[in-house]
Structures are given as C-alpha cells and as structure tokens.
C-alpha cells in the first residue's frame, strides 16, 4: 500500500469512528453537535496517562474512551432534557467549552499542543475502526437498536409500552461519547500530537454531515457516509480547487433529492429481495 493510500485510509478509519459516535444518539433522535469535544477528552486523557504515568496504551486508550463516555453520561442526563434545536445548541456549546478547556490547560501543553510518546501504526487504527463497526453491527441486532428507533419514532408510545425513553437516550449519548473518545485516543497515538484547535466545530459538523448523508435508518449509513466524504474529495483532486465547490453543489442537490440519506431500510430490503427472496428475514 502506498503511503498516500494508507494516509487516506487512516483518515477514513477516524471518520468512521466519529460517524458512529454521532450516529448512536441520532438514531434515537438526538443531535450531538459537540462530538469533537468527546474526541478531545479521549485523546488528551490517553496521551496524558501514557506520557506522565507511563501507562501502556492498551490501558490508557480504554480509560480515555471511558472518561469520554462518563462525561457523556453526566452531561447527557441534564442536557438531554432539551430537544431539537436547543439540544443542538447545548451540545454545540459543550464541544466548544471542552475544546477551550484543553486550550487553556497548561499540563497538556495549552495552545502549543501536546506531543504524545506512544505510537499506534495504521493497522492498529484500522483494527480500532473495525472493532467499532463490529460493535455497531452487533448492537443493530439487539433490542437496544430497536428501542433507539422506537424512541425516535414515537417517544410517548415507547414510554407507555414501558421503554425507558430517557434511559435509552442517555445510554445512546454516553455510548456515542465513549466511541468518540476511543477514536480520539487512537488519533492522539497515531499522529503523536494533539492540539485543542483540531477538535473544533468543523470536525463536529462534518461528522454529522457524514451521518446524515449516509442515512440514520440503518447501521450502514454512517460507514457509507464517512467513506464517501473521505474518498470523494480525493478522487476529485484532478479538478484542483474547484473540487470543493463541485462537492458542495453535489451535497446540496443530493440532500434536496434524498433527505433520508443514501442507505435506507427500504433500499436494503429491496437489495436483499433481489438475490434471495426466500431468506428476506435474515437481517
């Protein structure tokens, strides 16, 4: 594999992890616009533990993910009382606050950034992304995923049928935050440098865009969305600076024509029926 291709695929792996972090709460109808903040927590926590306390990475990375998840849990409980645009604003502000906090935290280098000693190669990053995808595929086969859609579809009825709407929403938010922290920790150890400015609003917004583009109805949406957004600009490189303009026009047209995203339940069902009509129950 060429260095260029590897570089692109590593970016893809990070984008996939981020996309699933946004997907989980979004599948329950909750927009998290502060995902970069949770990635920063995972990145800085894991970097700090390996740098200052000589923790091995296999311990530091899960702790980083866990801290991001715990923050998501503690913040999710009050923040998820808000809905719609208010929740979007609250999580947006949250991402900014976390980023600003690290920007001013001198023990992790402040605005100058924070070099990270331990290194994870591309294969480690690919493995991490694959693990996240497998976890998401697993969850998509459980009642948890069923309740995410149920809560999004009709929270009142889900509640009356005994489903803990708040419990499901907080769990999805916190689990998403943990996945973001997991990806962030790998980011720190792959690039060996973290700076608060990287975890900015654009990162959060782009990640949401991947998920909306791929579609939130199925577990495959974020994967397809992240892949498209990472690879398409690379393939359009020949047209130089115009590629971003072309790409933007394409996104606007696409979202106007297909607001539900690229991969939908009906699309998957259609694809499944064609080759094997008799085993349509398989997934």
């Amino acid at each position, binding site marked *: 594999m060429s260095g260029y291709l590897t570089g692109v695929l590593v970016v893809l792996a990070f984008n996939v992890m981020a996309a699933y972090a946004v997907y989980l709460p979004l599948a329950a109808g909750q927009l998290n616009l502060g995902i970069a903040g949770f990635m920063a927590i995972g990145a800085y926590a894991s970097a700090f533990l390996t740098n200052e306390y000589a923790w091995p990475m296999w311990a530091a990375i899960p702790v980083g993910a866990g801290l991001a998840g715990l923050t998501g849990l503690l913040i999710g409980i009050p923040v998820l009382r808000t809905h719609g645009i208010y929740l979007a604003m609250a999580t947006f502000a949250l991402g900014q606050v976390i980023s600003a906090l690290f920007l001013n935290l001198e023990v992790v280098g402040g605005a100058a950034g924070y070099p990270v000693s331990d290194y994870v190669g591309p294969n480690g990053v690919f493995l991490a992304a694959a693990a996240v995808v497998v976890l998401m595929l*697993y*969850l*998509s*086969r*459980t*009642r*948890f995923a*069923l*309740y995410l*859609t*149920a809560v*999004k*579809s*009709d929270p*009142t*009825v*889900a*509640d*009356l*049928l*005994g*489903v*803990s*709407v708040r419990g499901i929403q907080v769990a999805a938010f916190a689990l998403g935050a943990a996945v973001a922290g997991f990806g962030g920790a790998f980011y720190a150890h792959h690039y060996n440098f973290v700076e608060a400015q990287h975890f900015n609003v654009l990162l959060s917004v782009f990640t949401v865009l991947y998920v909306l583009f791929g579609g939130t*109805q199925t577990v495959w949406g974020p994967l397809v969305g992240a892949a498209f957004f990472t690879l398409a600009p690379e393939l359009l490189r020949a047209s130089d600076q115009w590629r971003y303009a072309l790409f933007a026009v394409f996104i606007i047209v696409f979202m106007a024509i297909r607001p539900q995203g690229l991969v939908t*339940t*009906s699309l998957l*069902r259609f694809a499944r029926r064609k080759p094997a009509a008799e085993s*349509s*129950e*398989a*997934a």
Partner: protein
Amino acid sequence: MTAALSIQGLNKSFAGVRAITDLSFEVPKGVTTALIGPNGAGKTTVFNLVSGVYGVDAGTITANGVDITHMPSRKRISTGIARSFQNIRLMSHLTVLENMLVGQHVRNTSLRALLTPYRLFPNHRWKVEARAALAESGLEEWANETVGALPYGVRKRIDLVRATLAGASVLMLDEPAAGLNPSETNALRDHLKALMAKGITLLVVEHDMHFVDSICENVVVLNFGEKIAEGPLSQVRQNAKVREAYIGAEEV
C-alpha cells in the same frame, strides 16, 4: 375481589377548563365495559389519565389493586394495564414485526434481553411469538412490511395486537371500530371475544352502539367530563340525561 380498574374522585382541568369532574367508576375483572359519550365528553382524557400521559389534579386510579395515580407512565404497563390509540400510534419506521417486539418489552426488561442479538436468529422465540400473535389475527403476511405504508384497517389491528403482546390483563381500547368496514368490524368483534375468553378485561371507548351492545356488559356514560349514567346499555338508553346529551349528536 379487586377490580381490574378503579377510578375514584378523578378531576382534571386544562388551563382552567374542567375536562373531568369527580369521576368515579369501576371495571370489575372480566366485565367488558364501554366508556361512551358525545365528542369532547372526556373519554380519551380518562385513558390519558389512566395511562399517565397526563397527571391527575385529584382522585385515585387503581389497576389490579395497585395505586397507579402517581406512578411514572412507563411503569404502569407492568401493573397489567395496556392501551391502544384512537389515532393509531405505531412506530412508522419499524416493520410490523418490530412493532410487536417493542410491545413485548415489558416482559423482557433485563439488560440481557436488551443486548441479545435476536436478529441473528431467524427463529428467535420473540419473533416466533410475535408472528404467532399476528397469525392469530390473520396479519402474518404483513410481518416484514414497514408500518407507514399499510392500509388503515390493517394498522388498526396491528395496534391492537401490539397492545396484547404486553401480556396485560386489562386493555383500554380507544375507538377500536372507528373507520372499519362491516367485515373488519366483525373480525374485530371476534378478536375481542377471543381476548375476553382468555380472561382479559376490556375497557372500550366506542361510538358504534351496535358494536358496544354486542360485546359490553356495562356502560359508563360521560358528558362534559361528568358521569351521567352507568349500567347495561339497554338501561342506559332509557336514561333522560343520556337522551338529552345525545340529542342531535347521534342515535342511542
């Protein structure tokens, strides 16, 4: 014997407007009861108070001997009381089968149940049970369809089957026969009689008096949020207050 559902001194106002005033009635176990009254009498409000969509201003609600007046709405179904909805509330992004699985939730609340990858097993017991319940109502052909696109009568029956899957002993049905054609209404009657034969107590809000007459032993009549009569339909029909409430509205 404790009543399936007991309502005592229930009051509810919305922004100063009295919706329910000093309402008391009981649904004994096994006695199919109808809640009738002109439009706006407060019938659906009673359902919403019992299921916990709204909090009560005063009064007590007891289901199977358990005081549920101030119980969180999501816990009430575990006391054995479930409901359907007037404006069918199915999860439109889920398939019919998946709606049934959500209906089973109250009997499968453990963390293990939450994280069991049942979709990997084509014949997982939850699916088998849900398909059997659908088959009993002749709905199995729709099992894998997304709910949103289905005909009204079918969605109506799915809503009913989902309510039964909670394993509740008391079912509150909000206008189950509304909008159904005569053959669908007959199928519904058979379905409800089968549920009654299983020992399930029904409380039905319904405008179709022939339908009420064919399944309900007891009738509670509401007007402007107050109970104006109670008893067998034949008796209630003769009541002067009931006749007055219905004049110009519909024939009783």
